[in-house]
Structures are given as C-alpha cells and as structure tokens.
C-alpha cells in the first residue's frame, strides 16, 4: 500500500529507526548500532537490530563514535551478518 509506505518512510525520517552500513575506501560507517560487543585490531563485532555484524580486517580502529553511529577505519576484508 502506498499510504503505508509513505507513513513508514516519514516515521523513519523522524525517528531514525532504520539501521544501515556504508563502506567506502577504508572506511565503514555504521548507523543505529545497539552495542559494541568486541573490538580488536582484526575484528569488530556489533549488535544491531536482531543481528550481529562481524567486521573482519586489518588494523581496524574507531575513528568516530557516538551512541548511534560508528566510523571504523582500516583495511576491511569482510563484513558478516549473523541473524538471531
């Protein structure tokens, strides 16, 4: 239904409910993560909306971090999703 789609879109715009991951060059931007589970040079595990995101790479570092967003830098080799 078109109406419902619009309502969801507007709700998300206002409340930032959707989560997403953007990767470009050696940067990985995560929006709306719930928890930082593990952080190491080779692996970062994040908890996001009923799934776990496993980022594998080398020399991984947190460039910027807020309660909602994360900017990870380093050479990213793999991004894995584990659904509960």
């Amino acid at each position: 239904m078109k109406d419902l789609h619009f309502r969801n879109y507007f709700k998300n715009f206002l409340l930032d409910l959707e989560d997403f991951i953007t990767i470009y060059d050696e940067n990985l931007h995560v929006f709306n993560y719930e928890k930082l589970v593990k952080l190491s040079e080779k692996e970062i595990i994040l908890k996001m909306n009923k799934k776990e995101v496993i980022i594998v790479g080398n020399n991984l570092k947190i460039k910027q971090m807020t309660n909602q967003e994360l900017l990870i830098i380093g050479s990213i080799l793999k991004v894995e999703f584990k659904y509960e």
Partner: protein
Amino acid sequence: MNKLIWVKFYNNNYYQLILRLNKLGITIYNSKKDKDCILIKIKREDYDKIKKYLISYKTEIYSLTGILKIDWLIKKYIIFIMAIIISIIFLLICNNLVLKIDIKNNNNQIKDLVQNELKANGLTILKFKKNHKEIEKVVNKILDDNKDTLEWLEIKYDGLVMIVNVTEKTIIKEKEEYNYCHIVASSDAKILSLNIYRGVPLKEVNDYVLKGDIILSGDITFNEEVKNRVCASGEVYGEVWYKVKVEVPFKEENIKYTGKNRYNFNIKINDEKYKILKSRIKNYKEKEINLYKFNDFEINLVKEKEYVVETKTLTEEEAYNKALKLAQDKILLKLDKDESILLKKVLKKEVNDSTIYLEVFIITKENIGLLKVTDVAEEDANNGSKPN
C-alpha cells in the same frame, strides 16, 4: 557550541579504551594512536566523566580547540598580549598627544597673546589633538577676539608638535613727521629734475652730485645765518650710470616633458629617502604626495615625470640680443614704476667659441632723493651754531 579537547591517555590498549569509552557513552570525535599513548578528541564535559570513572588511566588534556583554545592561549600569553595592547595604547596616545606648541612669529607679544588664547580654548601641551572642525572653531574664535591684532592664524600638527603660524595685523603708519631733515643723493648722478616742496635747494638741474651730497637742505638761512630748521621734502630725479657685465653661452638647454609618467613610493626616515620600486625612467623630475606621516617617518607617493633635454645653438646675433636684454633686465629690477632706462650702449663685446661677453653702459632716470633725518643737537655741535 561543543567545546572539544584532545585528551592524551598514557596507555597502549587502544581497543580496551574505546570499549570503555563506549560503555560510558562518550562520543569520540577523532582518535589517534601513538607509540606509547592514545589521543582521543572528546567533549570538554566528557573529560570530567573520564576523570571520575576511568581512574586507572593516566590522562591529561593534550590540546584544546575552538573557544577553549582561545581561552587557553589568552591565559598563557596574557603578559605578551597585555604588552602589545599597552604598546598600541601608548602609540595611539603618543600619536594624538601634543608635547610642544611652536608659535611661528618673531613678536614676543603676539606669541604670548596666541599662547594665552590657545590655553583659554583648551589647546595646551599634554592634551589630545583636536580634530579639524574643532581647530577651525578655535582659530575663528581667536581671530574674532583679536581682530585688531591678528591677521591670520593657522594651526597644524607635525607629530607631537602643534605648529601655530600667526601673522599680526600690520598697521600702516602714517608718514612720520620729522623736525629736521635733508634730502641727499642716493648715488652719484646728474640732476634731471627738482621738485621742491619744502627746504632750500643747494644744487640745481644739470648739476653733478656725489652719493651723500645734500640736494635740499632743511636749514632756512638768511644772510648766511640759520634762521629756522625744517624737514626738507621734494622729488629729485637724476641720471645714474651703470656698467653691466653679462656672459651668455651659445648653447642653450631647455627641458621638455615627454608626458610619460611613472608612479613610485618612497619611505622617508630622518630626512633620508628610500625608494621602494626601481625607477624605470632615466631622466625625470619628481612630485611627491604624502600618504602617511608619523614623526620623522613618511610614506610618499612619487610621480616621476620624464623629460628630455633639448639643446639649441644660438647664432651670434641671437646671443648678442639675449645678453643685451639680460643686462637691461638686471637694471630694470632695481627701478621703480616712474623710473626708466634712458640709454644703453655696448662698451665691449667679446666672442669666444662657446660664449659671448658684453659690457653694457646704461643710463637710467631714477629718484635719487633720499631723506636723511638729522639730529638738531648733533648738527649744532658740528657747526657750533644755533638758529635764531
């Protein structure tokens, strides 16, 4: 506005630190890892949280940003900043303060009068300079108050000195009346005309007189006895002779401006001038416009006007006429309106390769009568007689 700071953590475990900061809900704006420390950019208020909860970490504020940095810089360099501010204030005060008043006039009475007037109008030393409008007001007021004494007044500033140019009113005095005087010859001459208003003529028309000879005497005599003494007056015109020597070169140099102008700047420090740009014209004359002046320091805009020197070779006749005119002009400079040249004659003419030399004899008609005031007592002492 977020006040951000860089915090230095003396710790090597980067990942553990980030996790702990994450647990505390601290926003990280940037992070760097060095050999033996970790640098994290956070909000200023989050630093207090770190101090409170991460006791085991040795931390210090590494660098500040934004307003915090400005605040920190001000606190750190407060003495330097204060010194600069005080210097600027001092310079401004120096630039606007009057330390000396220079009144340009030879008359001490006028000087005192102007000084008192300036004082009454608030223009004294160790006071701030006034603007143009205020100065104009004061000048007009002083001139109005001293209409009979002052003709013109100008006030200007030169560095810390206030220069006051003042001209006093010149009262044309009526011709003084003397009791006893003679009219004497001002130079050697032959008398051409004699108009006697008062006194006794001792010479006649066509008589030759030497400089200082009495022409009209103030002694009124009868039977060779001085009966009365008056101030002789009259007009005596006579022939005066001059010998004028002039030399004129055949080559005449004239400066002609080409119309090509270039602009430059110069700095003047203690009467020494330094040009900022190299002059691109070979022969030029300068015209300066002052842009900035502070005491002995000046910055001027210089207009360089190019010129060429044109050499003209005169013929012998042209040089001769020029020399003759030059000789005549030399004499005319000395003459008044009612005096004239009666005759001119070339006595000697010498022509060299480069110059012409003339010796010109000129006869003029001049007023040769000169008033000589004589002291009666002195005259009596010289003559050993008294008027009856």
